[in-house]
Structures are given as C-alpha cells and as structure tokens.
C-alpha cells in the first residue's frame, strides 16, 4: 500500500513535469529557442492562483482567469522579445531569458514579498480516499493526475489529428520547408509560445495547493524539465511523456529510499541516458 501511494505520487509529479516539459520541448523544437524563463511561467501560474483565488474567493474561477492572463503574457513576450531571438545564437537566448528570470523574480518579490504562501485545496476535493486503517490518499492529487492525463490526451489529439497539429509537426521537423509551403510561421510561433506559457502557468496553478507558493519555485523545476527534455529528445512530445514519468518515479522512489541523494538520482539517470543515447530516447538522428 505504501508503495502504491509512492507510485501515485510519482505518476502525478511526472505528469505535472510533462505539462512544463512539453511546452519547453515544443518551443525549442519548433522555434529553436531555449527558454530559461519557462520555469518562471510556472511560478507566475502559482502566484496567479494564490492572488486570483484570494480575490475571487474561488479556485475554480481563478483557473480560467489565470490561464487567460498567462496566454496574454505569452503573446506579449513572444511579440516584443522572443520574435527577435529566432535567428540569433543560443547564447543570446540563454542570456535574454536569464534576464527575464531576474525580472520575474524581482517583480514577484515586489508584488508578493518573499514569504511562502499557501493556496487552499478547493472544498469539493479536500478529502481523502482511505486505503488502509492508517493510510489515505488525498483526492486533490488524484484530480491533478486526472487533469494532466486529460491535457496530455488533448495535446496528443491536437498534434496528431488536427491541421494545426500538422503545421506544428511540420514546423518542428523542418522550419524552412514548412514556411515555404505556406505555413504562417509568425502566427504559428506566437500560438505555440503562448500555448506553452499557458501550459506551464496552468501546471503552476494546479500544483499550488499541494506544493505551496514560494520564491525560486520556478528555477528548481526548470532544471528538472531540462533533464526531461534531454532524456526524451528535444522536440519530441512522446519522449517528453516517457521521460517525465521516468523522472517522476525516480525522484519519488529516490526520496523514499535515499532522501539525501534523491535529487542526484535524477541526474544519474540523465548521465546514463547520455552515454547510451546522446540524442535522447526518442529522436532518431
């Protein structure tokens, strides 16, 4: 039973990582931009959840408002900053997004202070399923797992079955070719970027009730997402899915078996994958 709980936790964490990593890997795969500020969007989401839930008094109202805000932020950033970076060297993308992290962190500090905040679990979901006499499992975590699965499924359908998805796949495998075949690349880029931003913010919002809201929360998860993207192979959604779950489970089991070294287990996994398949699990080249 104890291991079932850990398994559920691992899957839930892995799926949450997937929401972030899929945006990161798409933004890289399609636009060729490495976005260090992706973790900041996760933080922005969590603080939006905290702020909007405080104002509106309802977590359910905060969710759509927060996603809307994140979409707007995403479009604004894409148009004003990122669109200038597409042709530039990765080095400058790293620097600009590093600057953005500093800006986001300081704005967060000015607006919300440096304290740790909590977001209440919505009343409908704030009870636990009893597994045995002593162990129980919070329904809210099951809810996160369910929502993430739903989103992952929707993402899969959009990318594999729709016209937009076709353009995204085309753009991700060969940008110039897709552009010369008449795909509206600037629009596609803005869409994908805003979408990735919203996914990351959404992940932050639904994670907020379980993980609390604290400074620097975005950077911590960003690096894990990089590991996911490296293991899965850049630009591959399927790879991101497999890698997210692997990392989620490795991290959770590591915390149980060797708490001090759990953070390192994840990087060891990455080192092994790098030796075995430097291009990532899914990528062919």
């Amino acid at each position: 039973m104890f291991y079932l709980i850990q398994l559920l936790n691992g899957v839930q964490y892995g799926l949450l990582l997937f929401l972030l990593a899929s945006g990161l890997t798409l933004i890289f795969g399609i636009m060729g931009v490495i976005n260090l500020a992706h973790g900041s969007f996760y933080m922005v989401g969590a603080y939006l959840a905290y702020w909007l839930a405080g104002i509106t008094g309802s977590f359910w109202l905060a969710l759509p408002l927060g996603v809307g805000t994140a979409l707007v932020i995403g479009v604004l950033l894409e148009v004003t900053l990122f669109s200038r970076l597409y042709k530039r060297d990765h080095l400058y993308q790293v620097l600009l997004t590093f600057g953005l992290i500093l800006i986001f962190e300081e704005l967060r500090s000015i607006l919300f202070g440096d304290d740790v905040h909590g977001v209440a679990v919505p009343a409908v979901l704030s009870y636990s399923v009893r597994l045995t006499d002593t162990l129980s499992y919070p329904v809210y975590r099951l809810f996160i797992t369910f929502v993430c699965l739903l989103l992952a499924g929707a993402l899969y359908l959009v990318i594999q079955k729709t016209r937009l998805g076709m353009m995204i796949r085309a753009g991700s495998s060969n940008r110039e070719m897709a552009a010369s075949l008449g795909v509206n690349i600037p629009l596609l880029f803005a869409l994908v970027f805003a979408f990735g931003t919203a996914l990351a913010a959404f992940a932050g919002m639904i994670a907020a009730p379980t993980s609390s809201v604290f400074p620097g929360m975005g950077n911590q998860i960003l690096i894990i997402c990089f590991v996911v993207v490296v293991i899965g192979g850049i630009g591959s959604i399927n790879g991101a899915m497999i890698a997210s779950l692997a990392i989620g489970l490795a991290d959770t089991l590591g915390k149980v078996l060797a708490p001090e070294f759990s953070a390192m287990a994840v990087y060891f996994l990455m080192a092994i994958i790098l030796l075995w398949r430097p291009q990532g699990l899914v990528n062919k080249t």
Partner: protein
Amino acid sequence: MANTHFTRAVLLLGALLLAAFPLIGLTFYIQLGAKIMIMAIFAMSLDLLVGHTGLVSLGHAAYFGLAAYMLALITPKYEAASLWLTLPVAIVAAAAAALVIGFLVVRTGGVYFIMVTLAFAQMLYSLFHDTKLGGGSDGIYINIRPELTVGSIKPLDLEDPVQFYYLVLMFMLGVYAFLNKLRCAPFGRALAGIRANENRMRSIGYPVFGYKLGAFVLAGALAGLAGYLAACQFGFVNPEILAWHQSGTVLMMVILGGMGRFHGAIIGAFAYILLQELLSASAMFGAYAKHWQLAMGSLIVLIVLVLPRGLADLLEYGAVVYKRQRMRAAG
C-alpha cells in the same frame, strides 16, 4: 583587431591602475577590487569555452564552487593550511570533475550542451545542499586562511587585504598571459577551428572530442583557481557558490565584456560587479536598491538586443578612431 597598439596601451594602463589602486587605502574598495579580479579569472576561464571553442556552458560555477568547497573541507579547524598543498588539491579536484562531466557533456552539442552542463552543475549543487558533506545548506566557514610559506619565511600574508589583492592581481595577469599564449599556440588555433567549423576540423583529421574535452578540463581547472581564491577571500562557502545563478552571472560577464577576447572577460567582470554595486547602493536608489536585480535583468535584456558583441567593442571602436586620427595627422 583594428589597432593592437592602442588596445595594448589601454590594457597596460589598466594594469598599472590596478597595481596602483590599493594606494587609495580604503579596505572596502581594495576587497571589492580583489573580488572583481577573482571573477575576472572565472570569466576568462569561461570565455575559453564560450568565446574560443564555441561551447556555451551554463554550469561553469560547478568547478568554481567545487574548488572553494575543497579548500573549506581540507582546511583544519584551528590552524592554517598550506597554500602549496591546498591550491593544487582544489584545482585538481575541479579539473577532475570537469574531466568526468566533460566526458559526458562534450559528446552533445548546441542546446543540449547548455542544458546538460546546467543539469550536472545542479547535481553538484544538490550534493552539497542535501547532504551533510559540506555543512548542508548552511555551508562551512574557513576560520583561518591558507598560509604561503617558503622555507620558514612568509612572503605574503593572505589575511592582509592589500597583500591578498596583489596575489589575486598576479594570478589574474598570469592567467591572462597564459590564455593569450594558448590562443596563439596550435592548441588554441585548433579550438578556433572547431568553433568556426567543427565538421571540417574533424574531416581533416583533428581529434575534435579530445580538443574540446581538453578545453573543458582546462577551463574547469582555471575556474577552480578562481573558486579557491574566492573561498580564501570570504572565508565561507555555501551551496549558492555553485548555484546556476552564479553560472548565469559569469556568462553575462563574458558577453557584457565581449566574448572571444580575454580582456573582454576582464572588462565584463568589472562592468558587471561595479554596476551591481551601483544599482544596489541604497544611497542612490533608496528602497528600490533592494530590488537591483530588476534593473540588472532589464539591462541584460537590453544589452542582448542592442549591444550583442559587448563592451570590448567600444575599445576597438576607440582603436579605429585613434588610427584614423593618426592617419589624418600624417596627411
């Protein structure tokens, strides 16, 4: 290089100013100067990778921090350690870590390289942050600075800020001279070739992997030197010394100064830290000084957009103007 005489004259003047600087006698500023020069060594070591080999490492603080931790871990609690012993140990440790990590990361390229170097640096961060090895997240103190002795005499006392300043200045000029020699040596030319076109270098028979790994290890060792000096100066290390924030900062110094020229890294270190001191001076910005990172972040974004080749460009621009005037004077 428009006019190397002009650039050289300016750099020589800079070195003389640095040598005369402790005459102002204010300990705070002397220590600040030493701190900047330590970061300049660190930035030069990263420039070897970023500017000269084309490897953008976002985890360079790992080797800086590791060497700092080595000093803290091998210094006895109540007596001074010997510089002759601790410095090589710290540098070898940093180089060894760079060898192991480099062996894994150098086989990747481009954006993978950025992410993987960051991830491995984070691994070392967690090692020191989560385990009791180096005092956990609290860090450890180095109560007594290492001693520099020759036989029974002590030519330099590291506890003295002015003498420490000159030690650091010596190291900085030494590293600068060494790297510039290296740049012109066959090894450096091969790195430049790899940066320009890796595939071509491979097809004309250069062992590209070996060269890149060599550069990575050397950069790690020099970062270790800087980290060792930093630990000496502050007498304290905590995991933040190898956090990715540090890696990002040093990368920013390299770009700010202008990569691919080692004096650019020095200029970048000075510009960045002086700017940081200025922005966080509460005398000037009052309550907003606490939020200096907001201004710094905005500035970084601006620099990427308008001055992508760095401040060293201004120096070269000066050289061009100087040359033009001389030609005009000569008729």
